[in-house]
């Protein structure tokens, strides 16, 4: 096929190729990359996340030209962007909703990996780099949300930085170090701004490693079986360039509906009230994409101690913080917790159910995180948290030993096993 290898045409391109083969690298990445021919639309979300990252960087750099990170001026400067700066409203709404779009794309991308077993050998490093990107994104988005310096910005920052006070002995020193004061205040806002600008560039670096690791082993696919030869693959261009472009158009459409018709739906109205250190809003909620983790943080309301004594080993606050970090960090160990050799849930009759129950558990935790901690909510939160951790720490190791997978197809080109047991013909 003509797009298989890069053939520099023309004097300049040959000259360049001998000195800095960057076009060859791009060609290998976006044109000739051999891709399994059976990828479905769930494989669109990686490239979508990459495009949203670019949109965030461009709109962010433009916002930074008008934003003022002093605690006295930050809120007003965001209103100035909204009312006075030419197209400021558009750029800010794209950036603010872009954060949500980024998380939608990345969450779908991650659940895709969970369903089709993309985290398994030989793609463990690819998965781990993905979890690193996820952590960096959470930090970036958290600090970005502080910048408009509204009530939710301020109190969200207060609650999250106070998490570190749960650390025994050094907790309070760490918190005051993070704040640069005795409360979230001007120095805090300034350093968050500096880091909010920095981290996306770190994310780009890790994304490059992530794509490098992807291209060493190639993409997984919905059948979860290895590529057996060129007959199972097509070149990235034009096949997946086209499929990704179609997906992009659909995604941008949804994005635009939010930006132009519901620009504040995903945000919280209290963030249009300037930060007030003396009044906590009635009900603090983080952005929707943090809600399941917020529910886990609040789930534990009891201390663990030595029974019959007053000795507390781990108090509720520290336990909540540990549970929340564990719920993210457990993803790093996933490739080893699930040791079933079958990747795709299509051929794992029990895991398929476990996946969907886990998915519903995450949705339920998200709902609990959005509600006040009253009535049945604390119990739902606790049950959901225990189930979340048990899914990874108990269910998956158990399933990998006892589940009987369905027979795997011969190859991607030959996906159907005939009733007679013999396999069909190569096309």
């Amino acid at each position, binding site marked *: 096929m003509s797009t298989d290898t890069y053939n520099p045409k023309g004097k300049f391109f040959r000259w360049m190729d001998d000195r800095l083969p960057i076009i060859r690298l791009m060609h290998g990445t976006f044109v000739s990359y051999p891709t399994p021919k059976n990828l479905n639309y769930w494989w669109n979300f990686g490239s979508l996340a990459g495009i949203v990252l670019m949109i965030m960087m461009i709109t962010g750099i433009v916002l930074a030209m008008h934003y003022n990170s002093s605690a006295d001026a930050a809120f007003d400067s965001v209103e100035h962007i909204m009312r006075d700066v030419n197209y400021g409203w558009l750029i800010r709404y794209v950036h603010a909703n872009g954060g949500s779009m980024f998380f939608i794309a990345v969450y779908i991308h991650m659940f895709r990996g969970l369903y089709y077993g993309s985290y398994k050998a030989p793609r463990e490093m690819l998965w781990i780099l993905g979890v690193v990107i996820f952590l960096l994104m959470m930090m970036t988005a958290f600090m970005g949300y502080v910048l408009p310096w509204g009530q939710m910005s301020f109190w969200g920052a*207060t609650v999250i930085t106070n998490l570190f006070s749960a650390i025994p002995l050094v907790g309070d020193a760490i918190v005051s*170090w993070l704040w640069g004061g005795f409360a979230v205040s001007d*120095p805090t806002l300034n350093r968050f701004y500096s880091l909010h600008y920095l981290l996306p560039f770190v994310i780009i670096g890790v994304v490059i490693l992530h794509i490098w690791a992807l291209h060493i082993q190639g993409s997984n696919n919905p059948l979860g079986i290895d590529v057996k030869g060129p007959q199972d693959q097509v070149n990235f261009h034009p096949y997946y360039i086209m499929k990704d472009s179609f997906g992009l158009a659909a995604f941008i459409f949804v994005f635009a509906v939010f930006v132009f018709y519901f620009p504040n739906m995903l945000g919280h109205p209290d963030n249009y009230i300037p930060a007030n250190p*003396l009044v906590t809003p009635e009900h603090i909620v983080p952005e929707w994409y943090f809600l399941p983790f917020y529910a886990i943080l609040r789930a534990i*309301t009891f201390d663990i101690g030595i029974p019959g004594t007053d000795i507390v080993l781990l108090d509720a606050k520290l336990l909540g913080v540990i549970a929340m970090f564990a719920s993210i960090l457990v993803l790093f160990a996933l490739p080893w917790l699930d040791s079933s050799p079958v990747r795709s849930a299509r051929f794992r009759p029990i895991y398929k159910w476990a996946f969907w129950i886990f998915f519903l558990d995450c949705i339920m935790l998200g709902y609990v995180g959005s509600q006040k*901690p009253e009535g049945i909510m*604390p119990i739902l939160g606790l049950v959901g948290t225990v189930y979340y951790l048990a899914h990874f720490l108990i269910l998956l190791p158990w399933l990998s030993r006892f589940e009987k997978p369905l027979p795997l197809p011969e190859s991607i080109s030959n996906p159907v096993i005939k009733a007679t047991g013999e396999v069909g013909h190569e096309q």
Partner: protein
Amino acid sequence: MATDSKDSSTGNGIKRRDFIYVASAGLGIIATGSAVWPLIDQMNPSADVLAMSITDVDLSSIAVGQSITVVWQSKPVFIRHRTPEEIAEARAVPLEDLPDPQTDEDRVQRAEWLIMVGICTHLGCVPLGEQGLYGGWFCPCHGSHYDTSGRIRQGPAPDNLVIPNYEFLDDNHIRIG
């Protein structure tokens, strides 16, 4: 060269070259550490922030049953002029009912004036006054209930509301800090 290093070995087999490696690595670590420390310490509260350390408050205008919030070190401080019922209630609680046992007497200098940092010991929200199951404060963030002495009774917060250092300058004035 080979004979050289042999000659410089001491009786323990420590070579001159080993010593140089260890010494330069050690110095390198100290140098890196002293270069990194300023980069870490710059994030700690700066001198002007540390300087805002005391706040004086006039209590004369606070009627019985009223509270005010003042700012001390950019933190809210609650000053409550407690009613006799609140004091009685706080003093009637048996210590074993308290997650963070402390008598009401230990928490106040004068029974009618309860002065505490208005920051929930869970994750730092400002609790709301005269609310919650114990008639004291309620933190809406994750549902912590404090009693009329500001002691934690129920919810995720581990400790009682913190009592700052303060002194009565006279009957109507206090200095916090």
